[in-house]
Structure formats: structure tokens, C-alpha cells
């Protein structure tokens, strides 16, 4: 049981404030991290993972900053759009490198390939020839490598076809049922509405809502309406 806690997190890039004074807590289960493109979701997740230095505030996992974790990959698995693969390496080589760098047994490589549905034959092909969906599965395999309690997945549905999406939902459900803490970011509420228990909604770098998905909408108000009201619509309505 590992909680993720974000406190007063702020990031300015030059004159642009990408994230402003953001605070929320994430408990075990699946939490949707939602907001339109450019809302600051990715920047927040990168600060959580120690890739981007916050201007102010903290983001901790089980009470510790990512950089202070002794075996970070065994606590947190991450899928980010910014994690690339060398096109000349095979999926297996990529995962062996990750495992070796993270002090994870190489036997985990076959296990995670199996978990994301990449066959042994596919795993020995160069990533250059991979479809977007296969890359996404490889990214998920890398995230699962350390059998982590916390998963941070930035737009994991990207590149997946409908069957892939259904598979991803099942996988996330299974992982959450094991007691893991899963953060799934998306700019499309419908994509995650079937999977998530809790939602954190951000817009323009600031918190709009944090709580159970069920409490997001009221009578005569669909989830989508509520989501739009908390994001775009707010900008358009006169103050």
C-alpha cells in the first residue's frame, strides 16, 4: 500500500507557469489524472518521477521523493510518452538494459513480455519495425519490470486499437486488484471512465477536482458534461 502525495507543486518554464500550487493525494486503486492537452499533466508526472525539478512544492511516493528511493523501479513503474527506444535494439535488449540498470533480475524480462502480450518472436525483432501499439506494450512491459506497487502511466491508450484498449482496461483492473496504486493520465474522460475509481482533474496547471468519479456528476449532468464544465467551459463562461 503506497500512496502518492503532491503538495503545493509548482513549475514555471521561463515565464510560463505549467503547474501552479497543485495538491492532491492518490491512494491504491486506479486514479484518472485528467485534463485537456497542455493542462500540466505530463509536467506533474515528470516532477513526480524526478525528471523535472519543481519550482516549488513536493511530490512523494510513500513519503519519499523519487530520487530518494533506494530501488525506484521496484517501487514505481512509469510509462511516459518521452520514454523512447533505440530503433536498432530489440524489445528484449531494451528490457534487459532496463533490468540491468535497475538491479532487477533478468528473469523478469520474459515475465513482463508475457504480461503485455508480446511474443518471444516479436521481442527479438528490432523496435524499428514496431507498430505504435507494440511500442506502447513494450513501454508498459518496461513499467512493469520491477513489479512495482505504484504505476504512473501517461496516456497509456495512445496507439492502441479498440481491442488493445479493452486489454489495457483489464490489465489495469487486475493490477489494481493486487492493491497497487495506479495513476492513468488522459485528456479523454471516456477512455478511462470505465476503469478508474478516483479522478484528479486539472486545467491550466491548477486543480479542478479530486475525488471519487461517482461524485463528479450530479443529477441531469453526465460525466462528460461535468468534465467539460471543469475544463474548457470554465474558460468560456463569463467571470
Amino acid at each position, binding site marked *: 500500500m503506497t500512496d502518492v502525495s503532491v503538495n503545493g507543486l509548482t513549475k514555471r518554464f521561463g515565464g510560463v507557469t505549467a503547474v501552479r500550487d497543485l495538491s492532491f493525494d492518490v491512494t491504491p486503486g486506479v486514479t484518472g489524472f485528467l485534463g485537456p492537452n497542455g493542462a500540466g499533466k505530463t509536467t506533474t508526472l515528470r516532477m513526480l518521477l524526478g525528471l523535472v*525539478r519543481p519550482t516549488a512544492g513536493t511530490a512523494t511516493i510513500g513519503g519519499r521523493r523519487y530520487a530518494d528511493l533506494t530501488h525506484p523501479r521496484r517501487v514505481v513503474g512509469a510509462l511516459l510518452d518521452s520514454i523512447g527506444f533505440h530503433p536498432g535494439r530489440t524489445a528484449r535488449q531494451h528490457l534487459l538494459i532496463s533490468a540491468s540498470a*535497475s538491479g532487477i533480475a533478468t528473469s523478469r524480462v520474459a515475465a513482463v513480455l508475457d504480461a503485455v502480450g508480446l511474443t518471444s518472436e516479436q521481442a527479438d525483432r528490432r523496435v524499428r519495425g514496431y507498430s505504435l501499439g507494440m511500442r506502447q506494450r513494450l513501454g508498459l512491459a518496461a513499467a512493469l519490470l520491477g513489479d512495482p506497487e505504484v504505476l504512473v502511466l501517461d496516456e497509456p491508450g495512445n496507439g492502441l486499437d479498440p481491442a488493445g484498449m479493452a486489454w489495457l482496461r483489464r490489465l489495469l483492473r487486475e493490477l489494481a486488484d493486487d492493491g497497487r496504486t495506479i495513476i492513468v493520465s488522459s485528456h479523454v474522460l471516456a477512455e478511462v471512465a470505465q476503469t478508474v475509481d478516483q479522478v484528479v482533474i486539472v486545467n491550466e496547471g491548477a486543480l479542478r477536482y479530486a475525488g471519487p468519479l461517482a461524485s463528479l456528476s450530479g443529477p441531469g449532468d453526465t460525466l462528460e458534461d461535468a468534465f467539460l464544465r471543469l475544463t474548457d467551459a470554465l474558460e468560456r463562461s463569463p467571470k
Partner: protein
Amino acid sequence: MTVAAEFRKLRTVRSTWLLLGIAQLVVVAGVSGLMIRNDDRTGSTAQQGAMAHVGLVAIFSLLLGVLAVAGEYRHRTITDAYLATPRRDRVVLAKLAVTVGAGVVFGLVATVTALVTTAAWIGSALSISSWDLWRTLLGGLAWNVAFAAIGVGVGALITNLIAAVAAALAWLALVEGIVAQLLGGAGKWLPFALGSALDGLPGRTNVPPQWQAGLALTAYAAAFVAAAVATTLRRDVT
């Protein structure tokens, strides 16, 4: 464990083997060219000149170092490296250790190539027991090691791979010559000039002795790596 991962990275990309292969072609062609044009192939000057081609392989060691870091930014595998090892200085130092080791290998393989190519031209006249010959070979090896380390620094400072390779090659082909003109006598302390001095070839005037050249190049490498670590620690990875 970071070092083991870096070693695996190095040997699972083709560019490593391509650079090593092309370097041997350069040595074979360079030594052969020198032998064809030389009336006194078996002379010690010609033989030492042939061995000096090992030092030129340092350009490939430099590119190897640049690729080890800037290549990771290009393919965005650097994110994975920092997630595995949030202490980024450790990542840079592991890259340094592995690339310097590769620089030794590049120098040693080039040494064998230079010796074999020279022997192919002059047979048993090869002065394999000449200290001067080995002095040049050792100098060439040192040049490879120093440039491999400098390459890691350049790649970490200029994380855009194309820009980093262009900057490294432009420095060697053009910029150092111009800067040397401006500096006058002090130009002999610039990196490529120091590498050449490491060859310890006879008949060159106004070049520092091998040991001084080695120390000065080590200082360059240390400065580049220190700057690389300092900027890498601060940089946001987006």
C-alpha cells in the same frame, strides 16, 4: 549495475561496431598510403609514422563518446536511464567508464591493424622491438582514451546528437586551426594538437613532450566531464 547496463547499451547498437570497423579501414588505407609514397618504407620514420595512425582513430573514439550520451537524448532512452538511476552523476560516470574502456579497445584493435598492415608491406623489417614504435603506439592509445572521455563530455553538454557530432567534427577539421592561428604559440595546447603530440613523432618542433601532452589532454577530459555532470544534474528531462 549502471556500468553493466551501459556496457550492454554500447554493444547492442550497430554504430559502435560501425565506428570500430571504419576506423580499421582508415588505418589500413592510411598506413598503405604512407608506404606507397615512401622510398624508405623500412626506415624508423616511416614505421613510426605508420603507427601514428592509431592516434587518428581517436576521432572515432570521440564520436563513440558523443553517441553514448547525445544518442540517448536523440532516441529518448535517457528518460529510462534516469528513471533507473535518479542519481544522474552516476549515469554520466558509468558512461565515462564504459566509453573509456571502449577507447582502450579501439586503440588496441587499431594497434593490431597498424602492425599487421605495416608487416604486410615490409615483412620482417618491422621493428617490433623498437621502443620508439611502442612509444607512438602508447601515445595513440592514450589519445583514444582521452578523446573518448571528451566525447562523453561533449555529448552531455550538447545533447542534440547532430549538433554535437557537427561541433566535434567542425572543431577538428576547421575551428582548432583558426583558434590556433589566433593563439599563436599557445595553439600547441589545443586538443587535436595535443593528440598529435602524443604520437611523439621525431622531427617535430615546438610540440610539448608526450607526458605533458598526456597531462594536458587529461585536464581537458576532466574539465569536460565536470561540466557534463554539472549541467546534467540541473537539466529538466522533457
